[in-house]
């Protein structure tokens, strides 16, 4: 059995690495963290030209029809360069729409997503900061052939750039529903940008009697909960892929630093205590990498493995954030300065640690899946 990347994946990896080296350098990452939305738009335009938003969309809807495993390869590279671009948001939203929505929603939205005309971002979390779909309170009242939505969603990534949100609501009969909601300059939607450690735009969305056609409903009842569960699992694995790339980049940077920084006339990397740190970091990054690819492989048009998805996010959340702290130890004082790029990685890792559920959330999923 060949556990290596396929030829397509190798080409995706090489192409992404080369592109991001030039287009997502630390200056761009810092500019976006400082609120430069033009930098996001410029990068997104290039990303759309490369066809990345179309990666997992089926060919019949204008996409490339590639797999979640192929997506994970791209996401690792995006994570390694901290690319401030909403590929995770767009990809998992279109994945869920393809899996659960009606043919009319699919044929209307997916070709536009593939072309970059439409950008859909998930909006799941509310005031209680929970990723549990059962805790949804955002109210949607039926009015004729519309839903009237009132309430709030929080921590919505790239909401400023998105045209639509894929959001979970609770209808007046108490049933959950997953709905595609147009948010771009929409009356009845107020965006409040949040100060966020991730370094990318994150907002709260306040819906004030926003009318949305019932035809925008992707799924209702148990099917809506199932779709939301899969959305969170897919988001968790996608973030884990980015964390795997981030971890690899931090390990590489730390090895390079300790190989060159001299103390007592020798590189600090020659000290056994530092070597132990580096070995632990390398092992952690590789473990996450393997778990991510195992989890990504389980996603198909028929479903996914709850166990492996949870395992990947648990490991990524815990190990990569810890790896970043160890990297600061190995870098010494320079690693704690604003001018050094290491804090960009650490802050992103801390933000992604809780995104789509932290390790405690996914441990419960794993325990349930194991029948405990």
């Amino acid at each position: 059995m060949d556990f290596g990347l396929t030829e397509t994946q190798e080409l995706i990896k090489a192409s992404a690495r080369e592109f991001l080296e030039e287009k997502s350098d630390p200056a761009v990452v810092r500019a976006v963290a400082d609120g430069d939305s033009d930098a996001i738009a410029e990068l997104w335009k290039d990303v759309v030209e490369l066809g990345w938003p179309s990666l997992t969309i089926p060919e019949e809807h204008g996409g490339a029809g590639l797999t979640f495993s192929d997506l994970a390869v791209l996401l690792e590279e995006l994570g390694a360069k901290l690319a401030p671009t909403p590929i995770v948001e767009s990809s998992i939203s279109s994945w869920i729409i393809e899996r659960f929505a009606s043919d009319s929603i699919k044929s209307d939205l997916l070709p536009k997503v593939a072309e970059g005309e439409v950008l859909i971002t998930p909006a799941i979390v509310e005031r209680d900061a929970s990723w549990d779909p059962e805790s949804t309170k955002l109210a949607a009242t039926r009015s004729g052939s519309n839903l009237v939505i009132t309430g709030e969603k929080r921590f919505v990534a790239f909401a400023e750039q998105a045209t639509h949100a894929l959001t979970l609501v609770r209808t007046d009969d108490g049933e959950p529903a997953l709905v595609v909601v147009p948010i771009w300059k929409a009356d009845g939607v107020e965006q409040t940008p949040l100060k966020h450690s991730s370094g990318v735009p994150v907002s709260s969305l306040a819906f004030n009697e926003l009318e949305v056609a019932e035809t925008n409903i992707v799924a209702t009842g148990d099917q809506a909960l199932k779709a939301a569960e899969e959305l969170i699992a897919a988001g968790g694995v996608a973030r884990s892929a980015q964390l795997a790339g981030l971890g690899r980049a931090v390990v590489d940077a730390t090895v390079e630093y300790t190989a060159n920084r001299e103390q007592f006339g020798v590189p600090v990397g020659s000290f056994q205590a530092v070597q132990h740190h580096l070995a632990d970091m390398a092992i952690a990054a590789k473990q996450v990498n393997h778990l991510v690819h195992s989890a990504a492989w389980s996603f198909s048009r028929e479903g996914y493995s709850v166990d492996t998805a949870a395992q990947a996010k648990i490991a990524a959340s815990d190990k990569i954030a810890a790896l970043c702290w160890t990297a600061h130890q190995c870098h010494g004082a320079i690693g704690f300065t604003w001018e050094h790029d290491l804090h960009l990685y650490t802050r992103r890792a801390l933000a992604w640690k809780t995104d789509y559920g932290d390790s405690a959330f996914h441990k419960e999923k794993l325990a349930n899946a194991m029948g405990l």
Partner: protein
Amino acid sequence: MTVRIVVLAKQVPDPETPPSQFKIDESTNSVVPPSGVPPVVNGFDLNAVEAALLLRDGGADVEITVLSVGSEFVMDAMKKPLAMGADRLVLVDEEGLDKIDSSATVKVLAAAIEKDGPFDLILGGRQASDWDQAHVTLGLAEVLGLPLVSLVQKLEIDGDSLSLQRVIPDGYQAITAPVPSVLTITNELGEPRYPNLRGIMQASRKKPEILSLADLGLSASDLTPKLELKKLYVPESNKQVELIEGEDEADSGKKLALRLREEKLI
């Protein structure tokens, strides 16, 4: 009418290989392939691929064939021109062909072009980043008896005529050349495009056409080298730091300038 273009491409060690991983085996006068760093297509050859693609973007009906001579090809690297938009990949692949000199390479390329031709344009990078000799494309023009224009930064095709800009130290020359011609493309043409997802998928589906020396009517005895490599080594470099101190910045600057002049560096 379809313009048939062949672009010469060479697999080379990645120029971004960290210096610490660059090793030479002095007993065999050869570079030891760095572990974990896959080879790449010579960057200047990608400029040549880009030149061909720009003709297509400009409305010309072109068929782009990428031709390479070597062995142990890494397909993920060699398929990059296909992912950029080239139509075919032809590899003359036989053990030892990655070690032949430029005159033998010219012989093999000429035979492959004659077998697969005729071509309207033969494009190559200005030089290869492994040896930087810039021999092969020039020699190929000589062997094929075709006009050669080197260091082309812009090209347009109109029927049987090419309008070219050739880079010179203080500007460029405007040149008209006939079709067929051989051109070397320089990096002033612009950055090669990044492969998009559609291109990557098309490249994955295409199989390279593999030729052997026998397919070209050649044998190892036809490839006797004309160059002899006497010695290959990494030059020693000594890093010494000398701090120049002065009473103030202006004084330090003056002393630095004097020191640099003493060393004949300025």
